[in-house]
């Protein structure tokens, strides 16, 4: 199997004796969508930063197409592996187009500025995520979903082989969550591999080719969505009862938490009493 990005036995601790990553190994295939699930603080963001080569692992290594990502010069690395950060608000009110244009930085040389071709690539990326009309608006005026899509467009303008997305659908309404993930699905058809950290197992159910579940810095399960997204695995990793709802032909359709003492007919009973 071809592998674009490979992590070998990664370890990391911000404070000695309190590791946030322990012996994490994974591989990302070309055109794959890989979902990283796990509770808050389980090490997802740290893992993404190490996979992206902007944080050095304390143990193990990350290979991009077979070579150690920390040995690739920064601008070359940024031409191949991109990161889309969690939604943020920059201090200065750059236009949407300027934000996307910044994705061209790795191609600009030491003291260069973007040229016509870079503007064209940025505009094309904006069209791809459906934000062409907002091009000249200040980024800081956009809604959360539009900002997230802008950052995805910036990742596209970077024209990398791998895009690492840190909780791209957090803070988004269902419509915007879907449009971000549909864009991702479309792009993975072409040439880009995605690693996406998320708190929404349902998104993984719908879009992932490969799911990795983490708990306190370790990978507790990895594999295809149907293998990994089970009641047992999810209940253990989130420390709570989880129910997977299957369709008649035994395909998982939804993942929901179980409420304490909840019965399906409870609301119906209440309704009758009213």
């Amino acid at each position, binding site marked *: 199997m071809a592998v674009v990005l490979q992590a070998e036995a990664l370890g990391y601790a911000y404070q000695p004796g309190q590791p946030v990553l322990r012996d994490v190994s994974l591989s990302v295939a070309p055109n794959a969508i890989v979902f990283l699930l796990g509770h808050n603080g389980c090490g997802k963001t740290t893992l993404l930063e190490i996979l992206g080569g902007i944080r050095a692992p304390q143990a193990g290594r990350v290979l991009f197409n077979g070579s150690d990502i920390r040995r690739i010069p920064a601008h070359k690395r940024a031409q191949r592996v991109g990161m889309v950060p969690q939604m943020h608000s920059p*201090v200065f009110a*750059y236009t949407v187009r300027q934000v996307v244009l910044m994705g061209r930085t790795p191609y600009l040389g030491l003291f260069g500025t973007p040229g016509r071709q870079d503007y064209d690539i940025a505009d094309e990326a904006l069209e791809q995520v459906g934000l062409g009309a907002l091009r000249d608006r200040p980024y800081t005026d956009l809604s959360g979903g539009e900002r997230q899509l802008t950052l995805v467009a910036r990742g596209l303008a970077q024209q990398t082989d791998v895009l690492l997305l840190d909780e791209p659908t957090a803070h988004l309404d269902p419509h915007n969550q879907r449009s971000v993930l549909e864009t991702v699905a479309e792009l993975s058809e072409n040439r880009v591999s995605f690693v996406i950290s998320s708190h929404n197992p349902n998104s993984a159910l719908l879009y992932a080719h490969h799911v990795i579940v983490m708990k306190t810095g370790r990978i507790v399960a990895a594999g295809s969505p149907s293998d990994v997204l089970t009641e047992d695995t999810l209940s253990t990793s989130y420390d709570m009862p989880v129910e997977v709802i299957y369709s008649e032909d035994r395909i998982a359709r939804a993942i929901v938490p179980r409420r304490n003492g909840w019965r399906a007919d409870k609301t119906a009973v209440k309704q009758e009493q009213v």
Partner: protein
Amino acid sequence: MSRGSRRKQAVQRGLYWALLLLPLPVAVYTIGLGRYEIPPGDVAQALYDYAVSSHDPAFEPDIEYNLVTRIRLPRIAAAMLIGTSLAVTGAAFQGIFRNPLVDSNILGVTSGAGFGAALMLLLNAGMVYVQMSAFFFGLLAVMLAFLVSRLYYSAPMLVLTLVGILVGSFFGSLTSLLKYVADPLDTLPAITYWLLGGLTGVTRSDIPALLVVTLSGMVFMWMVRWRLNVLSLGDGEAQALGLNPTRIRLLIIVVSTFMTAMAVSVGGVIGWVGLVIPHAARTLVGPDHQRLIPVSMAMGAVFLLLIDTMSRTLWASEVPLGVFTGIVGVPLLLVILRVNKTGWQ
């Protein structure tokens, strides 16, 4: 693209070039102002002669020529170079510190320079030593801020800002101490006037060093103008986009510190330019450093030139420059913050 947005872009481009060229006519006009007024045409003629005809042995300088080139030109050049330095370093610092409320003073360069100058004035040393000492202590203050901030691990930029403010206050206290022990009839007024800032004493010999440092700094800032955009997003993103934020930021701080120390050593403590001008420029051309950096340079030059012209022409005796920049700059900043909708949040 719609016709409306194309027209808007044309207007913006026109404004950008107009702002860049503004220093020229303003300089020619203000050189003519003063006790002895010279019409702009004669000023242009004198400047042309200075550049071209003066190499001709048969050239006979008249009084306008001497006044323009010997007396007023050095001062006007100094005002423009200092204004440019303070404004562009302010814009760069606001970008790298991701904080619209800082200028190149934040790391203590001006306070250090003030102490250096006061020390030499107290010792009755010549102006050359005052300038050299101001320059040296300006650099020393920033170096100190850097070294001390290395002792702490958390949030490097925040610690650097904090330590910079502390180092600045420390040198401020040392300056106060010097003022306290200074002779109230002789050295104390000299120190006080120097700290208020002014270009009264600027001569031709001050210009070459100021010119070299400022021009090299301008070229550097011009080259990093795109990177300032990326740096202003924060370190994590700059790294993800293939930059080494720590290294570029250090370079920018070093260059800015040299520019500011040079400006302060010639003109004394001149506040507010580094804060007001980048905001004004951002209001006019937007936050993109590709335009913000050049426009800040031009507007800084024009601003300080106008302020200096006011300080030397409004009243019979000169009003210190540093006083005027505040009196004009603060209300201006208040207006900008009110008008500005797209500058920063």
